[in-house]
């Protein structure tokens, strides 16, 4: 792992007067999978939205060394960053193919992208014309990850992808993230509440509590799971 894909330095943000994320320092190395854990309402999704430029940020956000703190979302997305939000993440009335095409800046890269994601999710090439909203919940989540992978991103921001999924699908997605990291050195920042999934797939973790990072470490550390669960328990 060389260099940082993402570097947050004292990042704060929120909605209007309400500060939700406070002075967050965090880095994700190239080729690293980093998981950000926390209970509902702790600022995890807000932090991803802030990185993507949807919310005004204090502090500094760097993407592969470039300052992006005040850049517009579409400009950030064009810097080989793929964002999979937790809610309203697909264009439900568009087809599977149209959802995939929207992720590409180069329309000519569709077939090669499709071949690549087809290896992970064989149902997708077979159902390109199906309306995305008619896929099952698990298939929609897989399409969401597939769309993120279409553009060959250098960094992926994935927001609670495991929510509401059956264990077999979660295991499949974990395998996809590990394989993608191994093959392309893509950095991945996952936001999660599913501790087992998070620890199975990530290299490092941090716990966000009331907008601040209160715990961080390597997932291989002894008692990492116990520490995390302790923070996530009510």
């Amino acid at each position, binding site marked *: 792992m060389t260099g940082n894909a993402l570097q947050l330095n004292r990042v704060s943000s929120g909605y209007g007067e309400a500060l939700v994320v406070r002075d967050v320092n965090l880095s994700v190395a190239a080729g690293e999978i980093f998981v950000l854990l926390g209970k509902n309402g702790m600022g995890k999704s807000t932090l991803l939205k802030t990185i*993507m430029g949807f919310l005004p940020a204090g502090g500094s956000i760097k993407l592969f060394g470039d300052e992006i703190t005040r850049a517009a979302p579409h400009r950030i997305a064009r810097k080989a960053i793929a964002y999979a939000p937790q809610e309203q993440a697909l264009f439900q009335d568009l087809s599977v193919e149209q959802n995939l095409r929207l992720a590409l800046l180069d329309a000519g890269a569709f077939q090669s992208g499709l071949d690549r994601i087809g290896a992970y999710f064989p149902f997708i090439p077979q159902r390109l014309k199906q309306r995305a909203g008619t896929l099952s919940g698990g298939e929609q989540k897989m399409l969401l990850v597939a769309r993120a992978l279409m553009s060959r991103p250098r960094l992926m921001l994935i927001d609670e992808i495991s929510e509401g999924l059956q264990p077999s699908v979660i295991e499949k997605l974990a395998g996809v993230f590990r394989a993608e990291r191994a093959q392309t050195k893509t950095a991945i920042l996952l936001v999660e509440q599913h501790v087992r999934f998070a620890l199975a797939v990530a290299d490092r973790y941090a716990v966000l509590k009331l907008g601040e990072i209160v715990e961080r470490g390597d997932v291989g550390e002894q008692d990492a799971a116990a520490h995390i669960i302790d923070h996530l328990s009510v």
Partner: protein
Amino acid sequence: MAQILDIITTAAILYVVCAGLLIVFGVMKIINFAHGGFLTVGGYSALLVTKMGWHPWWGIPVSFAIGCVCGMVIERLVVRPLYARPLDAILATWGLGIIIGQLITLGFGREVQFVQSPVRGAIDFAGASYSQYRLILVGAAIVLGLALSAALNGTRLGLQTRAVIMNENLARGLGINSGLVRFITFTLGAGLASLAGALITPLSSVDPNLGVPWLVGAFMLVMVSGMSLVSLAIACLVLGGAQVLVSTYGNPVLGGLTIVVLAALLLRLRPQGFARE
């Protein structure tokens, strides 16, 4: 037969008038009350073309081009700074409509003027003698509808535009420059409104308030269309048809109110109007 043709041609005229408004509303979520002003710009563009001695058909591309230029300037200077304040944007476009009317009055005077029709006379169609020009407008509406559908469904920009309509933030997160999509949309909407103004002037006359009577009806038709070109066609046919029937068998004044009243009733009973969902 003539009455059926009246209904079809009225629907076609309404469709041409509403298309630009529908596109702007779909993408930008604002009702462009300057639409009436752009219709007037188109009418005067057609008038200028005929005054310069050009063939009246030139009024169509010229009006479209002038409308697009007006749209570009207005989007950049007036509408764009108000993206985050949609209510203010609506008020601004309303004011713009008034300003456009006043500027035209300054430039061309208040008097009613007439534009030469590109084609004149009637032809026998399905057993009835009917205005050639009104029948041509049916073809124009069909071509316009097909062209817009092809642009929205068959091009990358069209797909991006649909994405912005459905979920602008998600589209931006995928690298789509929604500001550019809005700019192109507003420009196209203004161009289409101006084009519509040029197309309808041979049916009536040109004056600085040309667009005003069309505005409320067009607004209501867009409201019941649910941002769909197909729904708009259905709305124009049904409500425009009702307008023709009320005007013919009732009272022309009541006929003028038909679209507004029926659209309001429809929205009360079925909030999505003619849209599927």
